[in-house]
Every structure is written in C-alpha cells, then in structure tokens.
C-alpha cells in the first residue's frame, strides 16, 4: 500500500504547523511555561507527528516529507523527553554558595586523589633536589633554577624600585589567563583516561616540591611562605580542583564497577565538570590579583608575618567554604539523572 501523499500532507499540515509554532516558542523563550491544557495539546501534536512519521516510513519512501517530519519529531522529542532541569534564570549567588561547594564535596575522593598525586610529585621533586642538587635545572620551571634562594631573597629585599611598576594589571591578567588555561588543559586531559591529568598534577607537584625544599634548605622558609601563601593557597587548590574534574571525567570514561553505558556515565558528571571548572576560573581570577598586587612584594615593604597571616586567613575561609557552604538545606543539588537506555542510536 502506498499512502495518498497529497491527502496525507493536507490532513497533517495544520497539526504539524501548530507543533512547529509551539516548538519555535519553546526554543526561543527558555523561561516560557505552559498551562496543563497547552501541555496536553503539545503532547498530542507531538504524538500525531510521530504517528505520521511512522506511517510515512512504512507506506511511502517519499524523502522530503519524511525529512520534514523527522526534524519536527526530533525537536518535539528533545522538549518532551528531556528530564534534566531547565535553568530559566541565572542564580549566581546560589550557584556560588551552594552548587559549587556541594559539587566539590560530591567528588571528594577525586579531590583527595588529585591531592595525593600532587603530594607525590612534591615528594619526588624535594627528594630529587636533596639527592642531586643539579636536578634543580630539570625540576624548577619559570627560571627559578637560575638563582639560589639566598640571591633571590637578597634581590627582592634590597630592591629600590618596583619591578612591576606600570604593569601590575597586565601581569595579573596574564596570570589569570595562563593559570586558567593550564587548569582547563588539566581537566581536558581527563579524556586520556586520566593519564594526562595525572602527569599534569605530578609535574606541578615536582616543581612545587623542589622549590619548597630549596628554600627550606637555604633557611628561607619565612620568605617562601610569605611569597607563596597569599596567592598559592587559592591557586594550588584551584589546580587541584581542575585535576579533580579531570579525574571525575576519567572515572566516567573508564566506568569501573558501573554497569551504565558510557553515554549515561558521562551525562551524569557533565554538569559537575562545568561547575568545577567555572569555580576554578573564579579562584584563579582572585589568585591572579593577589599574586600581582601582593605576593611579589616583600620586606621591608610588607612584613612577611602579615602576608603569611593573610594567606592563612584565605586558606581557612576557602576550607570552610568548600567544607560547609551549602551543607544545610536538604540533600543538596540533585545530580543530572542518568538517562534510561530505551533508545538505541
């Protein structure tokens, strides 16, 4: 049997046009809502279009009408069967104070792993420097191997002019963008089953450990803390959280002990990845400001105790924020639901 195409199109056209109008409105206005009556009509129109498509596919191979109906059904399908919440309004305060810390806590194991990898890198860098002082040329980045701690401290404390004079803002912008790029890269390398993320965290730890041991061995611990703490207590956790996000992605990719298919596993963590990396971005903007405007200034201009105190206050606030913020008020953010696999693409 071949259907009477013209009659079929003539009969279906008013319903298809109505459905198209509803879909246009839904797609244009994310915040729009429908009454129960409108919703019922929308579903009926969608079901009619789906039935028409099924009929056309069975009884006619006419491609133009089929493509049109397929497109219509695809659009209707995405609106009707979507179970993830639609974010109609931006709520940055709620996102920052509740969603971000809850997301961080939901993946705490990945954060601890990220921390452990960085600490292993620190230990490696530190021991390498103790065992072989020449390793500083391999382990220290950004030219830190060119000066001994004593020379660096002498230079900084005896400086008569501000070496960042007239370029503090651009330096801080450079730090923000550079560190954010590194963080995004650390997250993205989660797609290498986590190998790239682990390497990034480890090498970062190696540099940090080597520099720390170098200054401690030289008796410049106070300078080191005064230099690193103000921005480092935010910057280093930010990189750790980027590593956490990369590891979350890697776990979803590998799917240890999970029977859900890959698409469902990734869908489950996708929103969390975005939340974590946006949080990292905010942290790095702050760290960039602090590094350019405070960390690079030393005694006698700014007392080390003040800088260390500032860093400790920041660290306390950050810890409290990540551990406690948004803890009250129920079970917290509902993670993106895993889609039941009823469709087989």
């Amino acid at each position, binding site marked *: 049997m071949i259907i009477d195409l013209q009659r079929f199109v003539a009969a279906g056209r008013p319903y298809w046009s109505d459905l198209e109008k509803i879909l246009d409105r839904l797609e244009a206005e994310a915040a729009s809502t429908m009454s129960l009556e409108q919703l019922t009509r929308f579903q009926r129109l969608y079901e009619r279009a789906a039935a028409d498509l099924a009929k056309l596919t069975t009884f*006619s191979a006419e491609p133009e009408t089929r493509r049109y109906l397929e497109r219509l059904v695809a659009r209707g399908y995405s609106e009707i069967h979507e179970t993830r919440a639609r974010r109609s309004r931006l709520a940055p305060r709620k996102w920052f104070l509740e969603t971000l810390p809850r997301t961080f806590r939901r993946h705490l194991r990945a954060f601890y792993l990220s921390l452990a990898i960085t600490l292993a890198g620190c230990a490696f860098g530190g021991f390498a420097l103790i065992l072989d002082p020449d390793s500083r040329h391999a382990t220290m980045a950004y030219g830190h191997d060119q000066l001994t701690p004593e020379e660096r401290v002498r230079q900084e404390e005896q400086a008569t002019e501000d070496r960042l004079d007239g370029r503090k803002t651009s330096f801080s912008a450079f730090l923000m963008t550079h560190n954010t790029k590194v963080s995004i890269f650390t997250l993205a390398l989660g797609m290498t089953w986590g190998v790239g993320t682990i390497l990034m965290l480890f090498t970062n730890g190696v540099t940090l450990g080597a520099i720390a041991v170098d200054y401690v061995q030289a008796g410049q611990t106070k300078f080191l803390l005064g230099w690193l703490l103000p921005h480092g207590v935010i910057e280093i956790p930010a990189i750790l959280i980027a590593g956490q996000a990369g590891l979350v992605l890697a776990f979803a990719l590998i799917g240890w002990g999970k029977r859900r298919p890959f698409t469902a596993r990734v869908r489950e963590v996708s929103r969390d990845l975005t939340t974590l990396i946006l949080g990292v971005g905010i942290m790095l903007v702050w760290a960039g400001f602090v590094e350019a405007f405070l960390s690079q200034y030393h005694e006698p201009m700014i007392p080390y105790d003040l800088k260390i105190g500032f860093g400790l206050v920041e660290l306390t606030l950050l810890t409290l924020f990540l551990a406690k913020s948004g803890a009250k008020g129920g079970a917290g953010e509902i993670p993106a639901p895993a889609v039941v696999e009823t469709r087989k*693409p």
Partner: protein
Amino acid sequence: MRTSTLKIRTVEGVVFSQRLAGPVTRFLAWFLDLLCIGLLLWVVSWLSLVVGFLSWNLAGAFSTLAYFVISIGYGIACEWGWRGQTIGKRFFRLRVVDVEGMRLQFNQIVTRNLLRFVDALPAAYFVGGLACWFSPKCQRLGDLAANTVVICNPHVTEPDLDQLLAGKFNSLRQHPHLAARLRQSVSPDEAAVALQSLVRRDEFDPIARIELFAELAAHFRAKVEFPPEATDGIADEQYLRNVVDVIYRSRPEARRDQVLA
C-alpha cells in the same frame, strides 16, 4: 561501525534519523569560525590601542583578557545563543545536538568547547580530526565527553506537492481498474524513485534526462499495460508524471468527473 546517520528510537517506537556531519565539513566550518575569531581579535587590538592612550598597563590587561575570553567564549556563546550553531556551522548548515536527541544543555556546550584544548593538539585539530574519523558517530573527544554530535541541518520546509502533481488531464485515470492495479503493484521504493526523478528533473543533463525517463517509463509500462489510447502520443516524462499522480493521489474528484462523464 562508522555510520553517516544518527538513528534515535523514541519510546513511542518511532525512529527518526539525523545526518551526521563529516570531518571535512566540520573542518571547513571551524576554519570559518577561526576567521571570525581572528576578526574579533583584530577589533580588540584596535580597541586596546585606544585604551593604550589612557594607560598601556590597562591596554595590556584588556587585550590579554579579551584574547582569552574570545578564543574560549566564542564557541560557547554562539552555540548557546544559536542552539548549537556558530557562524561557521550556520554557513555550512551544521548543528550540535545531544547524542540521544535530548535538549542541548549549557554544560554540554561548555564541556565540548573546553575539550578543544585536547582536540586541537598538536596543531590544527589533529587529535580531534583523528577521533572524528575513527569514531562511529564522527565525534571528536569534546563531543564524546559532552555526549554531543554534529549533524547536517538542511533547511526543511513543509513539502509542497501541489506544484509537482498539478492537475493536468491524466489519461491513465480513464482506466480506473488498471490504475488500481498499478497502485497495488508498485512498491514504496519504486514510487519514491519515480517521484524523486520528477522532483529533480531540472538537475539532469538533457540527454541523461531523456534516457532516465525512458528507462523509468519502460519499467512502469511493463508493470501494468494500459490500452494504446491512454498512452499513445505521451512523452516518457509525462507518462511518469501520470504514474506518480496515480500512485500518490487517489483524487476522488477525478473519479467524480468520470462518473459524471
């Protein structure tokens, strides 16, 4: 297995398909986007020159931040604002969609755009291109992580068959029993070939067009033999038009005309 179509079966049991975009089309769209980003950065460099009159320090910060925001935010802003399209994708009629046919979410857009950092390695999206080439659904790593695919999104309008099957006199309808037999004996695929040959008739070379319609007319003539008075003096193309008219339209008014006659 690599496929050029994404098929989704709905819970109602209806299957719809979307044509997947290939790596080359996607590369061309990306290249156009790259030009757009370059243009925006050129504008920013001029703006930073203007800011430089106030302070070189501010100008440096402005250009650094603008470069970063544009290079990362361009794809995110365009795909969010245009529901899965950038300027390059609009030009080549491509669209990012959810791999399971769901609504595209902001976090999916962010994820697929941030993972460009890996896809772009070591240069010119080599890793992404390779992944796209070997992936069954032509997905780069960003698409895999975000559960998205890029589809070809041709402009689809409501079909208009009136013009094609406009009611000229159809001699085959003078023999309703043979017309009914023709409708019975033609498969949907044969009907589609006949209809498509008419829809696309102006795309063929003149000689190819004559040959094609001769072949198709002969095929349909062999299925049901109409008396000579219904077929004599009719060109092959007109014969096929009459066949398609019989197959796709039952036309009660034609039957009524015959009864009245």
